[in-house]
């Protein structure tokens, strides 16, 4: 990511009006620029930057959210988090969820995109619309509807499975602790697959049609074309797509909360839900300080994973192009 273009390539009006030399002159000449970014920066500072710093601060206090003063307790919350079994189970579940949902979603989406990228398919716009429809709908409401559909007694999913004879008695998709997380993951993949599909379509559109034409003239089969043209051409995009999907898959709160609220018996309590429960839905006293510590701890873990992923995929990409380079010689 982040291959920034040099500022010189910008179409700026200032370039034509001579080249200001000192920094002060340049700052003064750009004064309107700073005025224009002010509203965004103020909002960003209040609701993005401040919350980050404030999370850190709150995480070192035992604030309950009810009293106005926050008492400093040092690393006590972090020490507690490290020994907190409920946190670690939520942590493990979150990674299990991501590790299953992301690859399944990406592969399904790639498959759908490959099929729909075929320009000769006249109804492809209709199909694309249908696959994309769940993406635009309100996640929490979709969760409510899905929990009705998956209801073990009266839901249509069990009705159809019973009618088809695939099961003998109703399956409790969301009530069975061994199954609930995977039912939610299934709905998650259904809900967001259309998004990844659009990402892949963007990548596929960058492959020049002439390459495909040439391959066809050379008598390549569809599979060969995919292997030798599509895959290498879309690999650079894959890095970004995997990353966006991975980060997105950590935002599970609306769906899981509306489908199971973390139940049954905490079987679907992912980290986001655990934080919410500690801070806003506690049985006894809310613990905003401790919840912040969990949030910060988890946020850092995710960041490390994300960076590792970027690094790893970039390395793989670099190695691949090295190999290609060698082969060419």
């Amino acid at each position, binding site marked *: 990511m*982040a291959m*920034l*273009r040099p*500022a010189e390539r*910008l*179409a*700026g*009006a200032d*370039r*034509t009006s001579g080249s200001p030399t000192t*920094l002060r002159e340049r700052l003064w000449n*750009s004064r309107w620029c700073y005025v*224009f970014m002010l*509203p965004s*920066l103020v*909002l*960003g500072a*209040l*609701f*993005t930057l*401040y*919350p980050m710093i*404030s999370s850190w601060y709150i995480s070192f206090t035992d604030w309950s959210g009810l009293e106005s003063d926050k008492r400093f307790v040092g690393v006590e919350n972090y020490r507690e988090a490290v020994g907190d079994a409920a946190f670690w189970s939520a942590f493990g579940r979150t990674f299990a969820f991501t590790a299953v949902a992301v690859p399944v979603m990406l592969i399904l989406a790639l498959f759908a995109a490959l*099929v729909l990228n*075929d*320009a*000769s*398919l*006249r109804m492809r716009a*209709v199909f694309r619309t249908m696959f*994309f*429809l*769940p993406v635009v*709908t*309100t996640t*929490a*409401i979709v969760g*409510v*509807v899905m929990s*009705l559909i998956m209801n073990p007694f*009266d839901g*249509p999913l069990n009705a159809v499975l019973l009618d088809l004879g695939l099961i003998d008695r109703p399956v409790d998709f969301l009530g069975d602790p061994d199954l609930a997380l995977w039912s939610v993951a299934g709905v998650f993949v*259904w809900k967001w697959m259309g998004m990844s599909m*659009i*990402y892949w379509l*963007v*990548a596929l*559109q960058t492959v020049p049609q002439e390459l495909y034409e040439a391959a066809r003239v050379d008598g390549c089969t569809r599979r060969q074309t995919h292997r030798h043209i599509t895959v290498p051409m879309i690999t650079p995009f894959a890095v*970004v797509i995997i990353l966006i999907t991975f980060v997105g898959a950590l*935002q599970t709160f*609306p769906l899981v*909360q*509306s489908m199971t609220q973390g139940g049954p018996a905490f079987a679907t309590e992912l*980290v986001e839900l655990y*934080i*919410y429960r500690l*801070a*806003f839905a506690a049985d006894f006293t809310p613990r905003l300080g401790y919840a912040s510590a969990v*949030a*910060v701890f988890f946020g850092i873990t995710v960041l490390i994973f994300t960076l590792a992923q970027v690094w790893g995929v970039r390395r793989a990409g670099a190695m691949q192009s090295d190999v290609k380079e060698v082969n060419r010689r």
Partner: protein
Amino acid sequence: MTIPTATEPTAPAQTITAPAPPRKRRGWRREIIVSLILLPICLIWIYPFLWMVGSSLKTDTEIFGSVSILPEQAQWENYTRAWYEANIGPYFWNTIFITVFTIAIVVVTTAMIGYVIGRYPFPGRKVLVVLLIATLFLPEGYTIIPVFDLINQLGLSGSLWGIILAESGGAHVIQIMLFAGYFRQLPNELEEAARIDGAGFVRTFWTVMLPLAKPAIATAIILALMRVWNSFLIPLVLTLAQPELRTLAVGVYSFQGENMTDWSGMAAASTIALMPIVIIFLLLQRYFVEGVAGAVRG
């Protein structure tokens, strides 16, 4: 991710949504087979929505254990019950209010910052862009506690403006980059002509540049709409103590908790909540797809 200031941001806009170019009838058999396989898959894909709309017009006994979609006789009173008794009506207006003002704030602020990032090489630009991209990887769930605290401290916890501010305040990097890319490719001559006519920085932006950016504005509005209409965590947390401020997403969620067995009412409430965004999506699909695609294209 590069900033999408690279090349013609409008031209690739056509590619995903454009109709198929005329081609030889080669492989028509394959097309029919693919279509026949895809059609049932797609219908199953959107079945939950069809079931929801169907159930909203059924009686509860008719819904239970039934796979079919069409009701025997349309039960419109499900909608009246949801609208008045389950308070979906007030929640609907709350959501409209929040959505309209959030979109206005987001579009104006992101257009302004996008304009200067896209067109002016001011000192500190690179640092700004790097910071913006970094915020893309910041999950919302981990900042909700300070946001909740901040809204309370600002004394906005009892009004819809607290939600509006919290929704507008999140990083809207994709919109910023979209505007930056769009404004960047507008020709310099426009600006020079405006300057010769005596227009200053603000007038040039407001009367010359912004009107030219209509496609980018449309995409930015749609992106903001999708986000704020569907938002859940922020309105949930900010309305915990004030049920009358709930949005549709929070309202339907609470409806489920309070009336477990009223499936037809729940289906009607869900239909009311989803219908506006689904209709807008079907009408303005291009901008939805463009907005989503922007995340990768950049």
